């Protein structure tokens, strides 16, 4: 300011003129804009979360997005290997709108392209790279999660209900197995787990609304996988499910029309999963009587599940076939356990205080016996037939099983083979050697006889020749006697004359008979 040559002192007039601070609007605007931008980005920044994953495959820092319903709600900012050196930890910067989703039960998983029989998913990740998907859950708020190794079956909160299926054998089923209702895909298997006693497998399934209302009291679920070629005692049957089920297994269910809306089952209701459609169509009888049957002959062709019929009507099934060896007597027996369903028999004149077991005992005492019969000649399947054989004896075996024994009689085939065996035995006992020697000598003498017969035949031939000649001359003779020939005429004439002479002789004799005196007196002329 002391400088005499300074700009201010030299040209005060220019500097004194107070300029409108219009130019200051510019930095003010700039500050407002950048301040607002910074505030906005700061306020949009949500929490930073960490997710543990088994692998970082496909994940990239600053590139991998976190999405919910295909909306970006966060970005991976860091990937580290965890302390245990087995998993990785993904650090992600979430959007502030994602705050509400970050709860205890929120699940995270990496979406990668997947090609399966049930379809292709995550195809877009082939070009865009993997991303992390979120399924919001409930529970307390948290910022550390453990990612799922694979996408959960239910990605979004779809409407529907979950049920539990129980089966003894999983087969080709598993999570994501499709569930069909009249051929419409209506749900999926969510999880599978072994029951506490490891005797069955429980499948949690999800049925989409509105089909979940068709899961009712008498709904039957069955494995609809592959081609169901059954060769039972009643012939061949082929049944196929949808193509997807044929390839990768499936479950189908069916609800009888009698079930009304009132019978809709609540969520997590338990159902049995039948192995085949056939099984599911059978009415399930809870009240069964277990018996053991001892068959003497071979049970080849008898399978578990083979029907037990009473006069052709199925009333039960074979549940087990085993082999028993009596160590003492070295006898081999085949105990066949059967389940009889007495409820299938309609009782009339019902007696109180008579249990089904008692009733069965009465029937046995009346002669009810089990017999193996061939169900189908084509397949050779056997079935157990019950019928009354009042004359047969009850031959009870030493029963080691916990079930009561049901008396049996040999099967008709057995009886037949037995009879055939007896005949064969008799044949075997015949003195065949002696018979053959005798037959030999007989044959020899027969040979001599035939030689003689041969000579006789030559003679006969000659005789036949002479006979032929005689016949020829006879023929000539007969031909000369043909009508119209002279000989014939002469003979006719001769015969006529003979006739006349005979007549006159007859007259003579008649006359002589009446008038014997005529021989002496001569003919009386009057």
């Amino acid at each position, binding site marked *: 300011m002391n*400088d005499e*040559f*300074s*700009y201010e002192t*030299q*040209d005060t*007039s*220019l500097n004194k*003129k107070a*300029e409108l601070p219009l*130019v*200051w609007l*510019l*930095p003010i*605007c*700039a*500050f407002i*804009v*950048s*301040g607002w*931008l*910074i505030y906005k*980005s700061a306020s949009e920044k949500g929490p930073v979360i960490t997710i543990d994953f088994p692998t970082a495959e496909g994940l990239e820092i*600053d*590139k991998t*997005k976190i999405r919910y319903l295909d909306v970006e709600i966060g970005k991976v900012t860091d990937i580290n290997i965890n302390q245990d050196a087995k998993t990785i930890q993904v650090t992600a910067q979430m959007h502030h709108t994602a705050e509400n989703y970050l709860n205890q039960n929120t699940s995270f998983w990496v979406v990668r392209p997947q090609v399966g029989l049930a379809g292709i998913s995550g195809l*877009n990740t082939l*070009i*865009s*790279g993997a991303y992390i998907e979120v399924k919001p859950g409930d529970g307390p708020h948290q910022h550390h999660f453990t990612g799922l190794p694979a996408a959960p079956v239910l990605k979004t909160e779809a409407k529907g209900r979950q049920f539990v299926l129980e089966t003894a054998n999983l087969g080709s089923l598993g999570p994501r197995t499709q569930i069909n209702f009249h051929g419409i895909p209506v749900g999926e298997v969510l999880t599978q787990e072994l029951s506490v006693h490891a005797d069955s497998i429980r499948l949690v399934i999800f049925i989409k609304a509105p089909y979940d209302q068709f899961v009712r009291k008498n709904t039957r679920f069955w494995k609809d996988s592959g081609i169901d070629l059954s060769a039972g005692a009643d012939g061949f049957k082929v049944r196929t499910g949808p193509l997807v089920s044929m390839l990768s297994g499936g479950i189908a269910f069916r609800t009888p029309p009698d079930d009304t809306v009132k019978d809709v089952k609540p969520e997590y209701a338990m159902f049995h999963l039948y192995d085949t459609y056939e099984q599911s169509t059978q009415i399930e009888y809870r009240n069964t009587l277990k018996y053991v049957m001892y068959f003497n002959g071979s049970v080849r062709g008898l399978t578990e599940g083979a029907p037990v019929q009473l006069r052709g009507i199925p009333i039960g099934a074979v549940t087990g076939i085993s082999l028993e060896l009596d160590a003492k007597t070295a006898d081999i027996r085949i105990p066949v356990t059967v389940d009889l369903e007495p409820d299938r028999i309609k009782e009339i004149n019902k007696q109180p205080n008579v249990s089904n077991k008692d009733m069965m005992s009465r029937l046995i005492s009346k002669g009810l016996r089990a017999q193996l019969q061939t169900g189908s000649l084509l397949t050779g399947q056997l079935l157990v037939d019950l019928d009354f054989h009042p004359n047969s004896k009850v031959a009870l075996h030493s029963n080691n099983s916990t079930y009561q024994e049901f008396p049996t009689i040999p099967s008709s085939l057995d009886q037949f083979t037995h009879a055939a065996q007896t005949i064969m035995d008799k044949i075997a006992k015949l003195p065949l050697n002696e018979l053959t020697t005798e037959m030999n000598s007989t044959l020899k003498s027969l040979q001599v006889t035939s030689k003689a017969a041969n000579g006789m035949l030559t003679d006969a031939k000659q005789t036949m020749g002479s006979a032929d000649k005689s016949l020829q001359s006879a023929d000539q003779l007969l031909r000369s006697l043909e009508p119209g020939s002279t000989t014939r005429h002469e003979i006719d004439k001769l015969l006529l004359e003979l006739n006349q002479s005979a007549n006159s002789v007859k007259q003579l004799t008649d006359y002589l008979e009446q008038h014997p005196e005529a021989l002496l007196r001569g003919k009386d002329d009057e």
Partner: protein
Amino acid sequence: MKSLPSALRQGLIRCDECGALAQRGAASRPCPVCGSSLHARIPNSLQRTLAFLLCGYALYVPANIYPIMTVTQFGVGETHTILGGILTLIEGDMLPIAILVFIASILVPLLKLIGLSLLWLCVFYRWQVNARRWTLMYRIIAFVGRWSMLDIFMISILISLVDLGGVAQVLAGPAATAFASVVVITLFAAKNFDPRLIWDNQKI
């Protein structure tokens, strides 16, 4: 270093437009040659420069923290900040280009802002400096200013070239606007700064 007596001290004013010299007393009158108004020095130079400088600083921050462009490939957008782009170039073994982009996009605007700030401070606090060097610095700043639009040129070319709909698309981000604004604002700041003021302040 001895400075020659300035035109102002000799009572002359140079017309900014046509360069004609006029008598100092004629300051309130227009230039006798071209008719534009005459000023001994750019009016309110320091005030305006300061305003533009602050504006430039304010915009420099969003220009660097916001994405300058969004590359959309197959529907998946990927945003790039200036610094992020440089890091990508380094990762891609393109160090020379990375250095070039770094100089053009980060260093030059920043140096411009700092240089102008220093010039402004120098005049405001009447620092006794080597006026010749500082003038040289001012010239460099004023010359380089228009060349620091490299990023903006590249983005504008990319946007028009890479427009394949859903396959690939390049979109300018908010930082592009801020960056362009910084460049323009620093141009204005440099233009409004009067380097003669450096000389005016020097004590002989």
